């Protein structure tokens, strides 16, 4: 914990109409790129506003680099926190040029070091030479990169990004998320992104905190969130998948409608207890040679692969990935087999 750059401890936040953030604890390491991922209304933006200093705490503490920023009684004003922020609506100052926007937070810097910093950042965001333009003369993606540069310019200890890509079109969104990640990594700046878009979160973050109803359900790497969710909400929110009923057979084995499944480590459930296991479409693969047959009831062509929906004997419908050229028709019986190393098991 000593190494944490941002430390949020037992924070409660509320508006007049009730609790928005409920006892959240979260830490970011120096230079780490974190993300708060959750559906709208889960409290992620409110938490971000509290870190920036725009929202009062009901209880708890927020620390940044061993400095206490907020408690329920004290709040360092936003301008003294050393926190930068990029906004959803970009919020560039319309009456200032790109260079002046970037220089806005550089009060107390000598003129030469301001010029240097502006040039450096324009290079970093790939807008070299556009410093004298006005915000309205830039495209949406360019504007958002300038907003990023403006927030980074005073070298904040922490950078907050509040759904910064959601105003842009889908194609640009994914590209910009990875671009921003590269820029922030090269600068080594600790950052926290808020988004409701799972792909954006995967493109951007080292670790993602999935939020739901004011709680953090799981804080983990993108890989683990997808493959080892510890919470049914996370399992469903991060990518597609279905629950099926199963029973614990042995320390590592589970019997299911798809047969006996084996885990790579011991399961923490008593023998014979009823559980649910969570299967992603990439756990169930189409295999013409498999002896287990299921009825094809839906298909979605995705270019590089097919996403099939197959119906098992007991009526359960699961997603199933198939190679792009395996083109079957709906109603057909196709062979499927499981490709699982780690079982995701939840109590029933």
């Amino acid at each position, binding site marked *: *914990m*000593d190494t944490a750059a941002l430390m949020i401890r037992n924070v409660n936040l509320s508006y007049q109409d009730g609790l928005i953030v409920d006892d959240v604890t979260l830490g970011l390491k120096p230079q780490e790129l974190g993300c708060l991922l959750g559906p709208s209304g889960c409290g992620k933006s409110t938490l971000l506003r509290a870190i*920036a*200093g*725009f929202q*009062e705490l009901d209880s708890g503490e927020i*620390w940044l680099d*061993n*400095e*206490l920023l907020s*408690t329920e*009684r*004290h*709040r*360092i*004003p*936003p*301008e*003294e*926190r050393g*926190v*930068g*922020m990029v*906004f*959803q*609506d*970009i*919020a560039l*100052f*319309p*009456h200032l040029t790109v260079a002046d926007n970037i220089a*806005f*937070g550089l*009060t107390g810097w000598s003129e030469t070091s301001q010029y240097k910093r502006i040039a450096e950042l324009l290079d970093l965001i790939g807008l070299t030479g556009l410093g004298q333009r006005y915000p309205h003369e830039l495209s949406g993606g360019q504007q958002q990169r300038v907003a990023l540069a*403006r*927030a980074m310019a*005073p070298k*904040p200890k922490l950078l907050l990004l509040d759904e910064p890509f959601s105003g842009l079109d889908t194609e640009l969104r994914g590209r910009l998320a990875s671009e921003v990640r590269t820029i922030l990594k090269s600068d080594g700046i600790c950052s926290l992104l808020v988004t409701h878009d799972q792909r954006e979160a995967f493109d951007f973050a080292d670790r993602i905190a999935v939020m739901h109803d004011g709680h953090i359900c799981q804080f983990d790497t993108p890989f683990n969130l997808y493959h080892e969710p510890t919470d049914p909400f996370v399992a469903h929110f991060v990518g597609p998948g279905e629950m099926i009923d199963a029973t614990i057979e042995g320390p590592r084995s589970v019997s299911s409608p798809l047969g006996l499944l084996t885990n790579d480590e011991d399961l923490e459930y008593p023998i014979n207890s009823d559980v649910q296991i969570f299967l992603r479409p990439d756990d169930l693969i189409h295999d013409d040679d498999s002896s287990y047959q299921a009825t094809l009831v839906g298909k979605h062509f995705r270019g590089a692969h097919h996403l099939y929906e197959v119906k098992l004997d007991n009526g359960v419908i699961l997603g199933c990935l198939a190679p792009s050229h395996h083109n079957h028709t709906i109603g057909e019986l196709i062979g499927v087999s499981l490709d699982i190393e780690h079982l995701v098991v939840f109590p029933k």
Partner: protein
Amino acid sequence: MAITSNHQSVRWAFNRPNGLLLTTIIAALCVALPILVVVSFVITGVSDAWSHLFDTLLGRYALNSLLLSILVAIGVVMLGVPAAWIISFYRFKGRGILSWLLLLPMAYPAYILAYTYTGVLDFSGPVLTFLRDAGAPDWLMSPLLNIRSLPGAALMLSLVLYPYVYLLARAAFMEQSANLMEAAYTLGQGRWRVLTRIVIPMARPAIAAGTLLAVMETLADFGTVQFFGVQTFTTGIVRTYYGFGDPVGAAQLSTLLLGCVFFFVVFEKASRSKVRYYSDRLRKLNQTSVVLTGWRQTVAQILCILPVFFGFLLPTGILSYWALFFAEMQSMWSLIVSSFFLAGFASLFIVMVALVICYANRLYPSQWLNHTTTFVGLGYALPGVVVAIGVLIPFGAVDRFISSGLAPFGVAPSLWLSGTLVALVFAYLVRFLTVATGNLTSGLSRIRPSIDQSGRLLGLNQFGVISKLHVPLIRGSVFTAILVCFVDILKELPATLILRPFDFNTLAVKAYELAGDERLVDASVPSILIVLVGLVPVIWLNRSVTQE
């Protein structure tokens, strides 16, 4: 884990400067004062003159006000909607110029138009002399001779008030998405059906809002009806106050008028709340407009030029002609100086108060503050006559109180408040505060909260956010607010007439006095000055609208 908190750096983040909130409350009380004063007389019982009023004059006032309102409502719709329709949906030569020429009659106070046409249509004047010589028939001559009548007043008011309807209807037509119309065409509807079932119904709230604004101005009008001898509520109030020396009766008449106005305010708000069904993201209708040629083009041009011609070009030509060649005016300069000084000082003061209110709303948004601001907005709907009476009565009472208090010290009784510019500026504040808050709110609302927050995170405190970000961003809105207030004050007649200090004259009052003495040609000088200054915001606002 030993993290020591540095209590020096941790500070209370809340230090609320309550001056903002206090000013807002005081402003609300100022607006409330004339209303409360006037309405309070309903409870105090019936004045002696009231029963006489009720028996003889009240019915006439009410009937004339109602008739005038109806005629003006018809007039502004007939002048404003076709023009808006043609400008929005068709392309023809002169469309660009006509689209803003149609706004120019807004620069005219109705009473100036009334003076001008009365002068032009004088029995021995050029028009009627020409018609008589040409042997024009009686049915043509008599309405022209009788311009000083209720229909004549309705015509004058319609000619200057139709731009409200034109502006709102044009905006509504142009904002309508082309997709909706095209969707209707693809569903097999003809042009006429699309017009009557899609376009007009969607613009109806805007047309209604514009018409109601015009009707409210009509109810508030004093100069025109007074000059034309049409007895309405406003002339009745002044007559009861001065003629019969009966402030109670005047206040009670004011309450009746207020009731009517309030009724229309509620209606206007209701129709305006429906004005926003259009989406601004979609393709705009005016991009698909039809090009007109030949006789159709001529018809469109004539329909658009008629309101401008009679509402602006003709009277301005006549006024300029009189002012340049015939008018005799002494002490013109002192009149200009005193008018501009008064309007300039009052509009600066009003905008300052408005700025405080807008900031109170932005920094400490709350339900009651929002309601208070809405209430302050009612001031603009108060007829100038009512504001004047509502200010005069309490200020006069304060004067008498001060005088009686000072009498033992040998100080002669005097008008400490009611006969001074304080009363006048106070009345202007009540009446025009909304004009300023409206302009400033729209300017401030364009500055999104994230702009403020960015400023804070980049090292500015709240004061820095205002001085470095807001000031440069709302400079234009502040200027517009001052300009619009300035012109409104310059045009305002009844409140100025009733509340001005003894011997203090403004352009509007001078025009009124000269016209009252039948010196219509001499009245042209102050009149044309008011109109010329009034043109500035009309052109300025139209320019900023088209730029956006």
